[in-house]
């Protein structure tokens, strides 16, 4: 049943990507020179650290902001819930570049944030909030939030209502129901959201490139340079493979703890 999908994926995804990644080891003869060069690169370690740090912060921010939003959505009537979710999904369809430039306008020296803080006397002259970690995390969280909210909503909706009724029947007050029934059962959804956001964040290029400063250089920017300008595809593949291995390692940890089927919204049992 899954055979056509597997063939499709294998032919159009695994094979081309695999061919590119193998270029890091074969140039065309077998060689380790790209990985040797990677090991010697000071920039690479710094950039990997930036990438992981920024992705982790974005994930945390998305979780803190997204969890309450998801919860609130589950308390809406079906129509309002559908509209809210639609709004979230629509935001994903808007061009990433447009959204990033919008942040540049808002956070810039002559932007809304600067003007607002000036008006309320919180700063004494116009200031730019761009080209730093704050801007990058803000913009990336803005883009990735839907990927946190939707899995949590899905997890919360799949909680058996009879469990809640049982808790209430046993005398639990609303706060206790939340704390002891809803929250623990929503955790796998939160975990799914975290993994999705983290992995998507790892590969980000546009946002750190145009809103970030020197300290926000992420791996995808280095890969882009090697692919597009140096035409050194073997070296780019070495970068990419390392990032992929890192991502797979995270997947492995997630799978051990929660089970891979969670990501697909599969059965919790």
């Amino acid at each position, binding site marked *: 049943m899954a055979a056509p999908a597997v063939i499709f994926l294998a032919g159009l995804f695994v094979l081309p990507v695999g061919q590119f990644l193998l270029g890091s080891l074969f140039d065309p003869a077998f060689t380790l020179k790209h990985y040797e*060069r990677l090991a010697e*690169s*000071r*920039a690479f370690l*710094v*950039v990997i650290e*930036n990438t992981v740090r920024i992705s982790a912060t974005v994930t945390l921010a998305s979780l803190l902001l997204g969890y309450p939003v998801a919860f609130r959505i589950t308390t809406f009537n079906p129509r309002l819930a559908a509209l809210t979710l639609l709004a979230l999904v629509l935001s994903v369809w808007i061009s990433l570049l447009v959204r990033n430039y919008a942040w*540049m*306008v808002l956070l*810039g*020296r*002559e*932007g809304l944030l600067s003007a607002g803080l000036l008006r309320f006397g919180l700063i004494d002259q*116009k200031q*730019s909030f*761009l*080209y730093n970690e704050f801007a990058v995390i803000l913009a990336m969280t803005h883009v990735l939030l839907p990927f946190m909210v939707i899995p949590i909503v899905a997890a919360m909706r799949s909680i058996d209502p009879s469990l809640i009724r049982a808790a209430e029947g046993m005398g639990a007050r609303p706060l206790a129901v939340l704390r002891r029934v809803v929250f623990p059962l929503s955790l796998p959804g939160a975990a799914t959201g975290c993994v999705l956001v983290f992995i998507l964040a790892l590969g980000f290029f546009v946002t750190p*490139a*145009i809103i970030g*400063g*020197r300290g926000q*250089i992420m791996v995808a920017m*280095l890969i882009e*340079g090697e*692919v*597009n*300008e*140096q*035409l*050194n595809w073997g070296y780019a593949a070495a970068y990419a493979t390392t990032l992929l291995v890192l991502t797979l390692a995270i997947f492995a940890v997630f799978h051990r703890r929660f089970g891979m089927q969670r990501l697909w919204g599969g059965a919790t049992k």
Partner: protein
Amino acid sequence: MASSDRRDRREFLKATAGAVALTAMGKAVPAIAQSKTIVFNDSGGASAEAGKVAFGDPFEAQTGVKVKITAPAQVAKLKAMVQARNVEWDVAELVSQEHRLAIREGLIQKLDKTVVDVSHLTPDSHDDYSVVFGFYSTAMGYNRQKTGDGKRPKNWQEFWDAKAFPGRRALRNHPVDNLEFALLADGVPADKIYPIDLDRAFKSLDRIKQHVAVWWKDGAQPAQMLLDGEVDFTSGWHGRFFALAMAGEKRIGVEWTGGMLKRSWVGVPVGAPNPKEAMQLIALMVQPKNSAKYAEGISYICGDPRAYDYLPDKVKEWVVTNPSIKSRMVLADEDWWLENAERAQQRWNDWIAS
């Protein structure tokens, strides 16, 4: 319930099949009736618009062959296409040292000099494989409103001097041009810049590192940042400043001294579908009148000095082959960059990330 579902599905499939058939037919008919189309891949944006007026439309008027302009100019995509033997472009723009890279990797074919007349082109604007269709530059832009002519750096040495010339600065997040600017700032005379002493360049860059507020990546950023008041002085590709100036924007000023004179080339990819027409288009691109028309749109012009004479005066002030501008600039050495780009980039990445 089930039977009506089946009927609906059949209706749906019929409608879809009909639509697909119509589309297929629609595509087939024009292919028979229409004339040939060749593809010119260039940087896009203002360049594509100027290119359509200066090259595409005249070419179609002369030969009946349509020119489809695609973007962006990416030598990586060219390499992938040539390797896969599935080349979509007939004429490809190659920016600066990418053109040498393309020649070295065997991606473009030799020019047909019986079709392309190079006899009037300056020696630095053509070789066996390609011609320069746009001299452009990286120059210094500043916000005229904020600094006027008073306290602004007039060369790279002054740009490097944050004390004497206070103001927020921006430079590109890339070694290209910055290494040369760093050496100029360090007092190296223009004719002694190449081969670039990397150690000296990076030591010079160390002095300015803390004063650079923004390391721009996107070509549109410099002008935008000057207009937003984000920075006061920045390097930038002058064509962007030109476009704004021609649109009436008076706030951006350009300092040409110490700017890097760069070249954008065109060539015919190996395996291009229509090489004959491609060569004809290239021949047209270095015709003085057409090149001047292109420059009116984007201020980039070819290496034929006669083209300069066709320009309106206000454009002459922006074209880098203008003798008063060219004499103040440094011609970028594409061969040095071909050999050293990788090393320079690695060093730059290490330097900028730390």
